[in-house]
């Protein structure tokens, strides 16, 4: 490049540079084009249509015919008790499951980062629940708690306690769903938090010890602040995952018994694909999206302020 421009006049040099710049830019766009097209057609366009749909009344059976109804879907949503219950279940499930996952994951991370023999093996074993298909996890839990001869009931029965089909029991189904979320995702927190803890230089702890800080203080003033970024990533990711998750609830209880575990995702699915109320379902989806955006922005700005 340099050799060709040295000899020519300034204008030629500028043109050459501009050409190269254009070529580079063109190639940059060309390389990202396949991804951009796929994303736009399959996800981004449907999302925008979904948001638009929230202001229409439309049936899945006859999608061509759509009537603009303004904010009527939102009014319907506010008056809908099933929606309000589903919203409450979703918020409760998300906050309880994510808190438990974080606390257990933190405890497990503290244990896994210790240099005891065999910890490496445990570290690799623990992630296995995270790769299992959700349907397999649900089948395992349903089998363990089934009414006839599920192992949980065999144990309970031999202790002289009550046996039941626990997924069909109001008051038990919801905690079971929380348990499945915890079972599946806690190891992920543990692995990520452990990696963050290990990247803290040992010298900081040594200095703190010289200053007379005990392990609890070291944890509070050295470990916690330095894992707060990874903690935020983990918590935001899992709040979004749990809040939006459909499979775990739908496959294990389908929202039952008696709507006890109905969450927003399953309610939308039923509205859209069983009641064919596309517009109403879309408006609930938009509400979910707004809640998640507000949550993420607030959390990220709180984290940035610290």
């Amino acid at each position, binding site marked *: 490049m340099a050799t060709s421009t040295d000899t020519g006049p300034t204008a030629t040099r500028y043109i050459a540079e501009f050409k190269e710049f254009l070529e580079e830019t063109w190639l940059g766009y060309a390389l990202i084009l396949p991804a951009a097209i796929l994303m736009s057609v399959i996800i981004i366009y*449907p999302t925008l249509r*979904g948001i638009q749909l929230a202001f229409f009344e439309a049936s899945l059976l006859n999608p061509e015919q759509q009537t603009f109804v303004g904010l009527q879907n939102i009014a319907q949503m506010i008056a809908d008790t099933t929606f309000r219950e589903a919203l409450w279940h979703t918020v409760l499930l998300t906050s309880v499951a994510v808190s438990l996952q974080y606390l257990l994951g933190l405890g497990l991370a503290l244990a896994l980062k*210790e240099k005891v023999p065999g910890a490496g093996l445990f570290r690799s074993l*623990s992630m296995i629940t995270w790769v299992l*298909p959700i349907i397999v996890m649900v*089948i395992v839990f349903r089998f363990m708690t089934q009414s006839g*001869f599920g192992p949980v009931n065999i144990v309970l029965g031999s202790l002289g306690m009550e046996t039941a089909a626990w997924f069909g029991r109001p008051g038990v189904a919801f905690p079971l769903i929380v348990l499945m979320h915890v079972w599946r995702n806690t190891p992920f927190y543990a692995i990520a938090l452990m990696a963050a803890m290990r990247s803290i230089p040992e010298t900081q702890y040594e200095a703190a010890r010289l200053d007379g800080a005990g392990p*609890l203080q070291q944890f509070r003033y050295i470990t916690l602040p330095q894992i707060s970024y990874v903690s935020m990533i983990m918590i935001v990711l899992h709040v979004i995952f749990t809040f939006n998750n459909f499979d775990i609830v739908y496959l294990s209880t389908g929202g039952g018994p008696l709507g006890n575990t109905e969450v927003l995702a399953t309610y939308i699915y039923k509205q859209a*694909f069983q009641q064919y109320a596309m517009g109403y379902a879309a408006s609930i989806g938009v509400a979910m999206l707004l809640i*998640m955006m507000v949550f993420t922005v607030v959390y990220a700005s709180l984290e940035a302020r610290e």
Partner: protein
Amino acid sequence: MATETNTRTAESTDRSFADRIDAWLAEDMSPKRALAVYAVIGVYIAFLLLPVAYMMMATFTSPDFLYSPRLVPALGELTLDNYVAVLSTGLFQQYFVNSAIVATSTTLLTLVVGTLAAYSLSRFEYFGRSGLLFSFLGTQMLPRVLVLIPFFLVMFTLGLIDSLLGIIIAHSVLGIPLGTWLLKGYFDDIPRSLDEAAKMDGCSHLDILWRIIVPMSLPGITVAGFYTFILSWNDFLFVSILSQTAATRTLPFGLQLFQSQNTIAWELLLTAATLTMIPVVLLFAVFQQWVVEGLATGGMKGS
């Protein structure tokens, strides 16, 4: 140690409990501490693995045991009948093949598209670059059920309902954002001086990508590929919408083969579930070191 305690009792009076815990923890790796670590890990691993291990054991037993109020089978009740029955079911074979085709194609498509996109994001400057990455990642936040309704209509228009290609494209789109982001993190770590050197030697951009960037990011490509494969293999929601006949059904959706309205053939369902998870568990076993490391550090890298 003694001076340490003295200085802190001066600070506050009700620290004694915390001090006792501190003193206990401060004995660096005493047998007590090692034991505590093992206890925590042991209890947790049992909680994680016992249910799965019990299911796997149950698949090797006859219904005589499975429908009896006993927790441990007798030796005579061990059998491979369930595996013979499930594996010889024609539909199960078909679902398995479908799953393999879909997950493999999804992984390849995502890796090719994602690698090109990540290279573009990592090495080029152009208008809208950060906006693109941001909107890719933003799609991860969308409630899938919201996307699903118009998505169904789009796929219908494109004629991709009830076709494996439609499922492959849908799964790829789910994998591309995180895959691209992970790959970009790995690409960013490769010094640009290598690119420049290759350029001097007359390499084109695609040469650089293929000869330098890709070989040096194999761990990252493995992690992204593994993530995409399990995402596709495990997906239920999109297959349940796109698949209308047995010809396009994959395993997670196909497992209902063994349960009807009122009865569940547990011995077959558990066996089919075990066979469904074996490929992802095997892949995980092979790649776990890279995967665990990549997931642990990926979050920090890409930012």
